[in-house]
């Protein structure tokens, strides 16, 4: 069975069996290795990607359910040479230790900042609660999200970039 979906803005046809979780399709068929396999049980968030702008666990998302839907992964944000505002904030706050959770953290945080440009601390914490970091860099991750929110607001107010 072929499933047509949009991945990072480009239309893709994927051929994996319909019960295959999106995470495996991204990593094994499409070659996008940003999203990570953590627990496979929707408990840790390492596999978080955006589906139609909402953060979801790609390890529990059968690809057969995704006909016509929009998937965005960390590869859709920026590159090593030209990181997005949020990716740069994670760098500047040195929010990664081992880094395994970070792609998921970034995709969850980006989903919040896309909807709420000025989230308060409680909103950030409530939103990020679903993703875990076993190294314990949560405080740096929260700082990075706050830093990115501030940076995005000032870019928007200067009218330079989205």
């Amino acid at each position, binding site marked *: 069975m072929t499933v047509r979906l949009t991945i990072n803005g480009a239309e893709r046809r994927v051929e994996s069996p319909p019960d295959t979780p999106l995470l495996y399709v991204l990593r094994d068929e499409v070659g996008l290795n940003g999203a990570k396999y953590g627990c496979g049980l929707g408990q840790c968030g390492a596999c978080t990607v955006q*589906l139609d702008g909402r*953060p979801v666990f790609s390890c*529990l998302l059968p690809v057969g*359910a995704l006909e016509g839907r929009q998937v965005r992964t960390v590869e859709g944000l920026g590159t090593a040479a030209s990181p997005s505002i949020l990716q740069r904030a994670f760098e500047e706050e040195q929010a990664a230790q081992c880094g395994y959770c970070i792609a998921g953290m970034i995709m969850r945080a980006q989903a919040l900042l896309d909807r709420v440009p000025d989230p308060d601390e409680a909103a950030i914490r409530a939103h990020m609660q679903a993703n875990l970091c076993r190294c314990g860099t949560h405080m740096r991750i929260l700082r990075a999200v706050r830093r990115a929110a501030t940076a995005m607001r000032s870019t928007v107010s200067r009218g330079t970039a989205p």
Partner: protein
Amino acid sequence: MKPVWRHLLIAGLAGSVLAAGVALALAWEPAIGRVPRPDPAGFDPAIVARGATLATIGDCAVCHTAPSGAPYAGGRALGTPFGTLYATNITPDEATGLGNWSPAAFRRAMKDGVRRDGEHLYPALPYEHFTHVRDDDLDAIYAFLMTRRAVDSPAPPNALIPPLGFRPLLAGWKLLFLHRGPVEPVPERGEAWNRGAYLVEGLGHCGGCHTPRNLAGGEQGRRSLAGGVAEGWNAPPLDGSAGGWSIDALVTYLGTGLHSSRGVAAGPMGPVTEGLSQVPAEDLRAIATYIASRTGNAAPVPVQERAEEAARAHPEGAGLFAGACAACHGGGAPMLARNRPGLGTATPILAADPRNAIQAVLQGIPAPVGPDRPFMPPFSDALGDRQLAEILAYARARFTAEPPWRDLQESVTRIRKENTRP
């Protein structure tokens, strides 16, 4: 207009004005004067500790704490069929909380639903139940609340359907639905049962969710614990009409949020079990003793496992289940370790109404309170209505012998829409 009509009209108007006047007079309650905020050091620590337990049994913090807010500082929205009410601040803050309330004002609020300033309180504060609580217990709760940290936090204004913002109307509601007086002891039932009856019918206010309400929002007294609705979830019947429980099973379920052959506390029941996990064992057992006497102890239904038939009937649901659910709910899944219940024993999937099963997949089951409580992620953003309906139809066919749910997809659509309302 003919004179006779005019006279009748005038008489009618005069009668209405008189009736309204009498009603307002009946609705009137005096203010109870402000008192200086009591010194926390003046309360007996033993009474404060007893008040802490009673406040936990009464679930005060569940409603009176906003998400991520300070405990007891209020602000949590409570959606009702009549509009949205906001829980008030019950910390001892003088400007926005109970700081200037006397013990008498607190007792009156709990037993009669009247605010210190004489205004009527909405029955979202379950004074239908709290009216049965003994004064010494209310005084202990008062001591506990008055020794909390004062938080300056005014409650947002309520948003109710007109004319329900007019509080004197509540006096009429109370005439119909507020039945004062103690829970009558039944000596031959023994001490634990009587303690349980007092806690369940009083502070525990289990009927607040588990008893059906009439159109005016009053509990249907003759259908006590026959099952109700709370915040978009069904509160299952506790009167034996939907299965029985043993005392031991209830102690485990209520005290941990989890029973290996009964399921997991989800929705508004999660915070209830979180509270009950902290109450003294004898009170928990008393509550279980009383509830078990109401449910009866019929054996749970035998667990079904009919994967092949279910897959033939719902091939799409089977594929979606394999990709989205089987990692936790399939055979041999790690999530089923540590005595966690299989889907075939979960009450939502056995229920005649799919509402709670739909809510569990849409909203998930939030973060655990104990080490063994599972966390189920929400699927509302991941899967569409038709896909969720396929999964639920497959799971119902695979894990139960119950008839298929009808109009499942329409129900998913409707409940998803309900969940987006504040």
